[in-house]
């Protein structure tokens, strides 16, 4: 009887995974974003619209405000609006200089008010802010139809998914673990609904990012229930801590000035931690990347991933500053060197690819050269340091089924493939696999465990969930309140995708094997915690009206203020 129940459940389960995935994706990507107007630049030959909070002014076609005059530099100045509505202009090392109402602009920037004349290398334009009325109109228009896909319904489907998953485990688990498994899943469901209602209570309606993370977390919890059921409670504590960290970091990111002040300290702290790991860390499975505090084992490099993005992203005005660039380059290089010395090849690779993505997104003229040289240097260093290791991995790549590799260099891949294929499309049922008992089955080859127990469809859904987050981050990148958020969100998405690619394709022999974790799913305290923190960066890029708690709502105006503003306008 329980066997039949598991079989039936395993056929229904993928349906709910697909529903959750489709609903989240539709909600995140399903509607058009409108171009917002935040001000105007009056030129001799017409009016240019200011569509962003951070705008690049220059001769270049890719500038937000293009001034096609010969004397204007390709990237000349940056015009930034603060959340309070104050505009500032920064001169970013232009040849011809910038003046506001005849006053030279310094590197620290100058406040620009409605009607001010901006002079860029002898070319004068007039800046016009939008009026209160126009702003209200913009705000009103932003109330869009995306709420159509109701997050509570999606979450309800996710809860059904989790309930079926729990049911399968209750049928297959040994009786001593039943209570623990039940508790773990119930806590997860309570946690997600609590988060949902907490967000509703502060009138935040976007919940897709969290839903996808909870979806992946439930698969992760299933892997735990199947492989190390006595760790269920511990895992739930970690997810809980992760969710708390997600909200704390998200709240912290709301204030860009506050965020920026912490970049340097965080960079120093990260390098110190990685250095400390080299000295006092303990080696496990060939990589010296663990610190043991009492009975707790921590993988500090996971936290440094968060710091890496935190430090690597930058606002538009700083993107072109040499100081900022040097900090980023030195920091990246130190991180990668530390990781290389602790033989943590997988993480070093993740850092390296993320470095390339951030570099690509932020690179301006000088930056391009500096970043390219750094990138090449890091790659060369990594190759030298890791060449034996890499050579070994490449030697088995594509040859895992050769007789000498099946039980040796290709052990993890052959077993992952075999177990994965034996699950078919629907899996043998949660808890019914054997791959989980092999070495690093619930981390490095967790894709195989997913395929074996939950089936290929759900395993693919898990990968697609990460891709959905990436598409969301990219889609939001053009509407971010700051380049900082856009870069951070895209870098996070890329980091997730690199991890997924290395984890999945490494374990199925499409790429050489690297032992990295599948975000949210692989077993591992620090890595799950870090994933939730990284998620805050993606959440910060979501500028749909009232969607993200990370984005501050515009200051609420009292009726009186509004009236006085209107009066002023009329008299003007």
């Amino acid at each position, binding site marked *: 009887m329980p066997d039949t129940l598991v079989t039936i459940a395993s056929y229904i389960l993928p349906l709910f995974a697909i529903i959750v995935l489709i609903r989240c994706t539709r909600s995140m990507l399903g509607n058009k974003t409108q171009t917002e107007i935040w001000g105007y630049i009056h030129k001799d030959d017409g009016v240019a619209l200011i*569509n*962003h909070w*951070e*705008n*690049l002014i220059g001769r270049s076609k*890719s*500038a*937000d405000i293009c001034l096609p005059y010969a004397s204007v530099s390709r990237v000349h100045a940056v015009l930034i609006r603060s959340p309070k509505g104050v505009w500032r202009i920064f001169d970013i090392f232009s040849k011809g200089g910038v003046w506001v109402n005849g006053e030279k602009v310094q590197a620290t920037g100058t406040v620009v008010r409605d009607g001010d004349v901006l002079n860029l290398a002898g070319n004068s334009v007039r800046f016009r802010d939008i009026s209160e009325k126009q702003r209200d109109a913009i705000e009103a228009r932003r109330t869009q139809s995306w709420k159509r896909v109701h997050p509570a319904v999606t979450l309800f489907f996710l809860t059904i998914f989790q309930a079926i998953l729990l049911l399968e485990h209750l049928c297959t688990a040994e009786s001593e673990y039943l209570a623990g498994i039940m508790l773990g899943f119930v806590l997860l469901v309570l946690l997600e609904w609590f988060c949902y209602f907490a967000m509703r209570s502060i009138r935040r309606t976007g919940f897709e990012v969290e839903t996808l993370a909870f979806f992946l977390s439930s698969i992760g919890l299933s892997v735990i229930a199947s492989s190390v059921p006595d760790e269920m409670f511990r895992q739930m504590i970690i997810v809980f801590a992760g969710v708390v960290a997600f909200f704390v970091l998200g709240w912290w990111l709301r204030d860009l000035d506050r965020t920026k002040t912490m970049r340097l300290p965080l960079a120093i702290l990260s390098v110190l931690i990685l250095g400390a790991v080299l000295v006092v860390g303990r080696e496990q499975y060939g990589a010296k990347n663990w610190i043991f505090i009492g009975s707790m084992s921590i993988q500090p490099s996971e936290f440094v991933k968060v710091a890496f993005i935190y430090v690597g992203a930058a606002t*538009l005005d700083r993107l072109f500053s040499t100081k900022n660039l040097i900090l980023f380059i030195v920091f990246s290089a130190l991180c990668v060197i530390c990781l290389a010395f602790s033989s943590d090849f997988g993480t070093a690779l993740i850092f390296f690819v993320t470095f390339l*993505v951030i570099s*690509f*997104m*932020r690179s301006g003229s000088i930056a391009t050269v500096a970043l390219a040289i750094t990138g090449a240097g890091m790659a060369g260093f990594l190759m030298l340091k890791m060449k034996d290791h890499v050579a070994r991995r490449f030697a088995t790549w594509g040859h895992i089924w050769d007789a000498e590799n099946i039980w040796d260099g290709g052990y993890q891949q*052959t*077993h992952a*493939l*075999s*177990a*994965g*294929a*034996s*699950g*078919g*499309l*629907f*899996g*043998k049922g949660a808890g019914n696999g*054997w791959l989980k008992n092999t070495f690093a089955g619930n981390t490095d080859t967790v894709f195989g465990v997913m395929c*074996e127990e939950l*089936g*290929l469809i759900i395993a*693919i859904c898990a*990968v697609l969930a990460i*891709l959905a987050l*990436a*598409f969301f*981050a*990219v889609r939001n*990148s*053009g*509407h*971010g309140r700051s*380049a900082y958020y*856009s*870069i951070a969100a*895209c870098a996070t*998405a*890329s980091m997730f*995708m*690199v991890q*997924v*690619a290395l984890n*999945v*394709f490494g374990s*199925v022999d*499409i*790429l050489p094997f690297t032992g990295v974790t599948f975000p949210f799913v692989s077993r591992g305290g620090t890595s799950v915690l870090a994933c939730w923190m990284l998620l805050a960066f993606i959440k910060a890029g979501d500028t749909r009206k009232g969607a993200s708690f990370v984005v501050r709502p515009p200051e609420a105006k009292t009726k009186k203020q509004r009236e006085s503003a209107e009066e002023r306008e009329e008299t003007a």
Partner: protein
Amino acid sequence: MKKVSLRAFSAILMAFLIIIGLGVYVGRYIKDGEMWALYFDQSTSGSEYTLTDRNGTLLAKMGGGEKSYAENANTRIACYHVTGDYTGNVGTGALSSFKSKLSGFSLITGIEEQDDVNLQLTIDADLNLKAYEALNGRKGAVMVYNYKTGEVLCMVSSPSIDPLNPPETLPDGAYINRCLSASFTPGSIFKLVTLNAALENIDDIYHRTFNCAGSVDVKGVQINCTGVHGQQTIEQALSNSCNCAFAEISLELGPDIIAEYAEKLGITTSLKLDSISTQAGNYDKDGSMSASMAWSGIGQYNDLVCPYAMMRLAGAYANGGTVVEPSLLGQSSKTTQLVSADTAQKIASMMNYNVVYHYGQDRFPGLNISAKTGTAEVGDGKAAHGWFVGFLNDEEHPYAFVCLVENGGSGLGAAGSVINTVLQAAVAK
């Protein structure tokens, strides 16, 4: 911001690479998933998967990480095309075609937990041995099945190899099961199709006489006959396998009707033996009403047939027009009404007439047989293909058969004697 958001598309590129990677994985899963799944499963679960013939003779065994074939080397060779091999060289072999039945694996459900599995085929390995011996190294195909139950008793293709010790140089076409996966020039056995069409389309066919002077001229081209048959009835024309008579009938029917019957009788379509698709034959319509058209009704020109389709047709005539669809897996419940009972009865009795009055009953001692021979000219100065297709009129042994001996010279001499050897053994069982 414009620049930042443009460059953000590098992330999309990464997403597409991942999607492509997933596609590659799914593709490999479809191709190799079975191998992957079974690799460790067999060594860990300890279940045994065996393939046996109808008498329980072992043909192949997997389990405990080991794979083996029949013990006797001659059995391995005679049953090679039935069994196939573990590398999948014979696509129609049971190890390939019934893989999922053997292992319990399918791409949809993966591996399902099960006890030891034995797949028993309807094939009789002893008959296969007899047939392979009778072919005596010549290329060809022999197939016998029970037209009442559908069970395929014998299926042999030559040349064959020993899958356990494959030779260094492979005999030409050793991987092809000639019974199912090849088509050949039929020669006179195709006259059954033409006759079938004639019986249903020429009203006075039984009252006609066909004159044979040893050859006939069609639009200036001479069609030679195997002899000078003089005045014949339709029965005599068939048993003489008279080319003059069938040239006349073919021209009267025309290419459209013959093509229609070739398709209706399963000659030019791909058929199914269980899940195995067979090779379709060929009939090119020649609308010129020339000698080519006449030849196309006599089984020459561009005509091709698959031995399996001919055996199935013989089974239909034997069983009153209804085919019990052949199967390798047991008694078949699937039937197809191929021809009308009336036509089937007429052709069946004419095929019996062939044996009694022409081929000679003494060639088949103790067997009540109905058949048609074929001697297919293949050109290039090579000896003709010999065909023999028919069935036994025996309640206890209702067997339909087909035999092809490539370049065997004559239908009756080459293929007929192979069939006699096999049927004698089958009836003696």
